[in-house]
């Protein structure tokens, strides 16, 4: 039987109960990830968003093995990590890529050691690292809905402050913006939303929801509202398409969503490169006085 002959009906996404739950979860996370992702790419926090997801891994292993709430454990680790990054930034010491990379290695190594030698979790490691969008419960949906609502409220109320701060930090602080509070809220919100995404995409693929769609949108959007809208649209679409692909090819949904999102990014980047290559030099800046 060829692959094409095995194409499932798109209706299965809503008719099969486990698929429907996964679709709702990925749509809610698409809203959260699309909105926050726009701020993540504008504020150059992509590596932070990836790291805060991965940092939760040892916490998830411990929670999984001891029966403790995975959400609470992950939230504690993620918020602790975000707080540490904010403190370092406030003291004028950017934690920097090296420190972030080190934290990633430590988190992964610690998680693997805990999983294999302390708790002998074995099979759970895959699920904790890459998620399982097909084994979700109502609690996961509510948490994702909460993350989407928080992201929406924060974008409406803090978006102007986040934009002004990212554009010109010293200028924003002299306008009288509480730059530090706004930044802390952004980091904290990314941490909370990353935790909400863990059941669906796991500790390692958080960036596929919170960075990739916004990075794709960033290539074409010319305004911040445009960036937010395209980013959410791409995030929701990649969730649905990824889920369909996972049903079709019988692969895990988390990686399928990640591959679909990354492919779309590559296609848009390629399209732009071709367009820039075929058009003449960009119009020069006109000095009007």
């Amino acid at each position: 039987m060829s692959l094409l002959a095995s194409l499932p009906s798109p209706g299965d996404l809503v008719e099969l109960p486990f698929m429907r739950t996964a679709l709702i979860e990925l749509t809610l996370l698409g809203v959260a990830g699309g909105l926050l992702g726009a701020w993540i790419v504008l504020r150059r926090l992509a590596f932070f968003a990836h790291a805060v997801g991965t940092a939760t891994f040892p916490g998830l292993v411990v929670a999984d093995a001891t029966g403790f709430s995975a959400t609470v454990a992950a939230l504690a680790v993620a918020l602790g990590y975000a707080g540490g990054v904010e403190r370092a930034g406030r003291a004028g010491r950017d934690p920097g890529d090296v420190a972030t990379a080190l934290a990633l290695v430590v988190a992964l190594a610690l998680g693997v050691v805990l999983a294999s030698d302390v708790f002998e979790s074995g099979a759970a490691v895959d699920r904790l690292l890459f998620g399982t969008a097909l084994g979700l419960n109502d609690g996961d949906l509510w948490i994702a809905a909460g993350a989407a609502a928080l992201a929406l409220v924060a974008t409406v109320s803090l978006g102007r402050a986040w934009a002004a701060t990212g554009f010109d930090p010293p200028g924003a602080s002299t306008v009288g913006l509480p730059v530090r509070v706004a930044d802390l809220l952004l980091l904290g919100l990314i941490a909370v939303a990353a935790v909400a995404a863990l059941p669906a995409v796991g500790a390692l693929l958080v960036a596929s929801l919170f960075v990739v769609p916004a990075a794709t949108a960033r290539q074409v959007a010319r305004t911040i509202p445009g960036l937010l809208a395209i980013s959410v649209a791409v995030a929701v679409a990649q969730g649905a398409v990824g889920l369909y692909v996972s049903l079709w090819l019988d692969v895990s949904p988390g990686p399928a969503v990640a591959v679909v999102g990354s492919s779309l990014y590559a296609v848009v980047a390629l399209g732009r490169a071709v367009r820039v290559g075929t058009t003449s030099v960009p119009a020069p800046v006109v000095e009007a006085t």
Partner: protein
Amino acid sequence: MSSAPAVVTEGLALSYGSPSPVLEDVELALPAGSSLCVLGPNGGGKTTLFRALTGELTPLRGSVRVDGRPAYLAQTERTRLDFPVSALDVALMGSLANGRWWLPARRSDRAAARGALARVGLEDRADVRFGELSGGQRQRVLLARALVQDARVLLLDEPLAGVDPASGERIEALFRELRDEGRTLLVSTHDVDSARAFDRVLCLNHTQVAFGNPSMALTRAALEQTYGDEIVVLDDDGSGGPVRAVTVQHHHH
């Protein structure tokens, strides 16, 4: 022009956390509606002084007093030129100063931003992306933001660096208008020659070398103490008045 001081520092010493100051003995008073040119070599303390005036840096010793919240205009290369914001969006950021930054911009905020862009002569560029404007236009957009903010004191970091002469003249005309409205301008620059057009000049090199009107502050001795071997005095008529000079950057490898 009101004579109430808009900016006052007394015995000001500043450092970045260490007990030894990077800038000290800054003693100045500026009346509202006046202009100050801040001269000094790179690392001489110009930006450090501005950071104290914005309140970002707490004095190690001495005091700072500024009328209202100053607007800080960084060199536009220090802003994010890849940011998806238009000239109007940037001008509108000034309205965040009205204390309701968590609410969407009002119609009146937008009108004020458009009005400010018109004042700096950029109403027809309102929808152009900030990063696509020329250096001089970007500087004028930041001035528009300061106008929307209605700052009484403006701190400008090298506003004319990399700006073509025509745009530079336009910006200088705007400076005169702002002073006539009673706003106080503090402008840091490397252009010693342009300092003569200001009401007062402050020379900084880790300490306050000179402060006063141009003929008092722009002496050969003061400039040599400020810039060391980076200064070339072109024209000194020996009258003790302001001299003509240029700075040359020595690159140490």
